[in-house]
C-alpha cells in the first residue's frame, strides 16, 4: 500500500496552489457571485493553456492524458481557492461523458475545442422536482422524422448561462422501469427554443432554469444509445459527486488552517483563544473531519483512476463530506465569533459553498441510500 502522491502529482498540486492563490483573490470570488457569467474569460484561457481544462482527456484530442486522481488534486486546490466558473461543469458534466461514451465524430467535434478553453459545457439533469433519480426525468424528447423535439423545464442546471453546449437528459419512452427510456442529447445553448434564466443562489454559483420549447435536435447529436442514457447519467453522477467532494475537501482544509491561525492570533482574556481547552477540542474534531476525508477521497479517486468499480466508495466520501464540510465551517464560525459573521471575512464564503456542495449531485441522505443498497439492504 502506498499513499504518497507521485512527484508529478506533487508538482501539479503545488503549482495549482500558487497559481490560484495569486490569480483568484477573494475579491474576485465575491465579484463573480454578482457577475452574470460567473467566470473571467482571461483566467479561463490561462487555465486552458496550463492544460487544466484538458487534464483528464486523451492526448489524441488535445488533452493531458491524466487520470481522475490528478483531476481530484487540482479540484482540491480549486475548492480551497473558491475558484468561480464552469470548470466542473465543462470537464466532468460535459467533457468526460463525451470522451467516454461519444462517437468518434462527437469526440472530434467537441473535445479539442473544450481542451483549448473554447467550448464550455454542462449537463441539464434535474427538473423542478429537484431529485437525482430516474423517475424525476420528465422532460420529453419526441422522435419526429430524423429529429427529436424537446419540451419541458430543467432546473438547477449549473452554468447553463455560459455553456456553449448542454447534455440534456430527456425521456424518450415511458417504460415500466423509470431508468429505461431516457436519452441524452447534445444541445446548443443558442438553439431556437432554449431559454435560460439565472437563479440567485446561496453560494452565488450559476444555477439556471432552462426551458425547452420545441427544441429540435438531430439524431447525430444523441450521446450514447437511445433509451439507454441513464447508464451514462449514473456514471456522470459518480464522477460529479467525487469531483465535488474534492472541492469540498480543499475548502475544508483551508477553513481548518484559517481557524488554527485565528486560534493563535486572537487574544482575549490575555491569552490566545487557541489555548483554551474547549477551543482546542473543537479544532481537534475539525481536523478529524478534514484528515479522514482526504484519505477517503484519494482512495475513491484512485479506484476511478484504476478502473475499479467504486460506487460505494464514492457514496461514502460524498455522504461523509456533505455533513463534515458543513460541520467544519459551522464550528469555525463559532470559533471566529462575530468577525466571521461579516461579509468582510472569507469564512462565510466557505459556509455558503459547503451548503451548495452538500446538495450537488446528492446530499447525505441520497448517498446513504446508495451505501444501504451496496450493503445489500
Amino acid at each position: 500500500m502506498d499513499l504518497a502522491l507521485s512527484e508529478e502529482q506533487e508538482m501539479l498540486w503545488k503549482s495549482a496552489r500558487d497559481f490560484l492563490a495569486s490569480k483568484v483573490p477573494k475579491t474576485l470570488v465575491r465579484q463573480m457571485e454578482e457577475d452574470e457569467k460567473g467566470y473571467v474569460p482571461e483566467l479561463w484561457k490561462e487555465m486552458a493553456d496550463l492544460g487544466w481544462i484538458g487534464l483528464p482527456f486523451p492526448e489524441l484530442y488535445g488533452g493531458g492524458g491524466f487520470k481522475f486522481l490528478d483531476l481530484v488534486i487540482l479540484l482540491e486546490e480549486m475548492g480551497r481557492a473558491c475558484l468561480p466558473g464552469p470548470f466542473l461543469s465543462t470537464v466532468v458534466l460535459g467533457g468526460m461523458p463525451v470522451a467516454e461514451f461519444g462517437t468518434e465524430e462527437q469526440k472530434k467535434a467537441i473535445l479539442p475545442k473544450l481542451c483549448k478553453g473554447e467550448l464550455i459545457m454542462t449537463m441539464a439533469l434535474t427538473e423542478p422536482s429537484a431529485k437525482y433519480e430516474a423517475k424525476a426525468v420528465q422532460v420529453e424528447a419526441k422522435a419526429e422524422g430524423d429529429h427529436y423535439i424537446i419540451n419541458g423545464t430543467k432546473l438547477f442546471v449549473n452554468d447553463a448561462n455560459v455553456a456553449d453546449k448542454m447534455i440534456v437528459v430527456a425521456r424518450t419512452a415511458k417504460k415500466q422501469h423509470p431508468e429505461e427510456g431516457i436519452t441524452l442529447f447534445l444541445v446548443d445553448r443558442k438553439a431556437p427554443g432554449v431559454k435560460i434564466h439565472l437563479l440567485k443562489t446561496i453560494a452565488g454559483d450559476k444555477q439556471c432554469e432552462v426551458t425547452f420549447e420545441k427544441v429540435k435536435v438531430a439524431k447525430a447529436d444523441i450521446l450514447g444509445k437511445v433509451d439507454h442514457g441513464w447508464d451514462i447519467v449514473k456514471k456522470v453522477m459518480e464522477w460529479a459527486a467525487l469531483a465535488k467532494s474534492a472541492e469540498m475537501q480543499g475548502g475544508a482544509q483551508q477553513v481548518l488552517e484559517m481557524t488554527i491561525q485565528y486560534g493563535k492570533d486572537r487574544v482575549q482574556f490575555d491569552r490566545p483563544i487557541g489555548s483554551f481547552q474547549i477551543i482546542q477540542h473543537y479544532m481537534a474534531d475539525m481536523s478529524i473531519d478534514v484528515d479522514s476525508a482526504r484519505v477517503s477521497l484519494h482512495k475513491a479517486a484512485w479506484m476511478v483512476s484504476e478502473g475499479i468499480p467504486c460506487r460505494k466508495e464514492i457514496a461514502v466520501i460524498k455522504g461523509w463530506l456533505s455533513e463534515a464540510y458543513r460541520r467544519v465551517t459551522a464550528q469555525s464560525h463559532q470559533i471566529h465569533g462575530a468577525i466571521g459573521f461579516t461579509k468582510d471575512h472569507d469564512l462565510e464564503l466557505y459556509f455558503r459553498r459547503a451548503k451548495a456542495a452538500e446538495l450537488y449531485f446528492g446530499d447525505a441522505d441520497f448517498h446513504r441510500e446508495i451505501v444501504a443498497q451496496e450493503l445489500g439492504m
Partner: protein
Amino acid sequence: MDFRFTPEEEAFRKEVREFLDKELPKDWPGTDPDMYHEDAFDEFHELSMTMQRKLAAKGWLGLTWPKKYGGHEQPLWKQIILEEEITYRGAPGLDPYQFVGGMGDLLLDFGTEAQRQKYLPMMVRGEIKGATGMSEPNAGSDLANIQLKAELQGDYFILNGQKTWQSAAHRADLAPVYVRTDPNLAKHRGISIILVEYKKTPGITMRQLEMMSGLKAFNEVFYDNVKVPKENLLGEINGGWKIVMAALSHERSYGVMLLINIRRDIDLLIQYCKETKDVDGVPLSKNKLIRNRLADVVIQQEVARNVGFKLNHLALTGGNVVSTANAVKILGGVTTQRVAQVGMQIMGMYGQLGPVGGNWRQTDPVKDKWTRLGGRMKHLYLSTVCNTIAAGTTEVARNAAAGALGLPREPKPAPKK
C-alpha cells in the same frame, strides 16, 4: 403547579394578538427577534416606528415602569406575554434596547432622577430608538477589555475610540456606551457607562457592515473627541462593571425570544411538508426521514420552550435566574441552528434560493420565480450562525452555567515573564 395561564393572562394575550392582527400588514412574514431586519431595510424601520407609537398609544411601552416616569406599573407577567406574542408574530416595534432587558431597566436601577425624568417618558411615548455600545475589535467575549476612552474634562466626558458589531446604531437616538474612564485600574474596575445621544452629538461616525446573511445590520461606530455632558454618566464613575453584570443578567429574554420565534419557522416547515409533494406524488410529510427529523426538532424546541417558561417563573417569583437564563441562551442558539439545518434539508435544492433577509415583500415574481417560502430557510440558515455568538457566546454561557453549578473556575495561565 399549574401550567395554565389565568383568565386574566389569557385575556391580555388575546388583546395583544388582536392588536397585532389589526395593526400588522396582512401578509406580514415576520422579522427575526433582533434588530437586524429593521436595521437593514428602511421599510421595516418605518413600520417599526409606526408600531412603536401604536404600542405607546396602547400603554404597552414601559409596562412595568413607575408611573412617575410615564410607566404603567403593570405586573411583570403582562410584559412577558407582550414580549412572547410580539416575538411569535415577528412584529417590529418593541425595541429590545429600551424595553426588553435594555436601557429602561438600567435607568431604573442605576440612573439619576434627572436621567430618568429626561429619558424614560420619551421612551414610553415611543419617540426614540435605542442601541447599545459594548463590543470593540478587542473586546468581544472579553468585554472587560474595552478601550474606548472617556476623559472627564470640566463638565464633559471626551470620548475617543470605537465600537463594533453594533446593531441598530445608525437608527438609534440613545445608547448606553461602555467606556474606559481609568486605564490605570484593573480591566473591569476602570469601566463606566455613559448615555450618548447619537443623533444630536457631533464627532460620531458610523460604517455599516454587511452580515453573512446579506443584511447590512452591523455598525462600526467611531468616536472622535465626542463631548458628552457629565450628567450622562450612568451610575458611578469606574463602577460600570456592576452595571454590565446587571445588564447581562437582565438578558433573560434573548434565548426565549429565539425559541418562540423559531416555532413560527417550524410551523412553516410543517405546512410546507404537508403541501409539497415528492417526485412520487407523496407529500413530504409522509416521508419517514423528514417526519423523524421534523419531530426531533419540535421536541427540541418544545423542551427548550418549557425551560423558557421556567425562566419566566423564576423571574416572576424573584428566584435566581442565572443558571436557567444561561441554559435558555444556549438552547435558543442551538435549537434555531438545528431548525435551519433541517429546514434546508427539507427544502433540498430550493433551499439555495431567496432574496436577502428572506424578505417576502421584496420577492420579485420574475427574479424569484422559483423561490419557496420567500427564501426564509436560506435566510435562517445564514442568520442563525450568529445565534450562538451574539449577546454572549455559547462558550461563555456554558462557563457561567458551570459556575452556577458550583464548579471551580478555569485557572488563569501563569503571567508571562
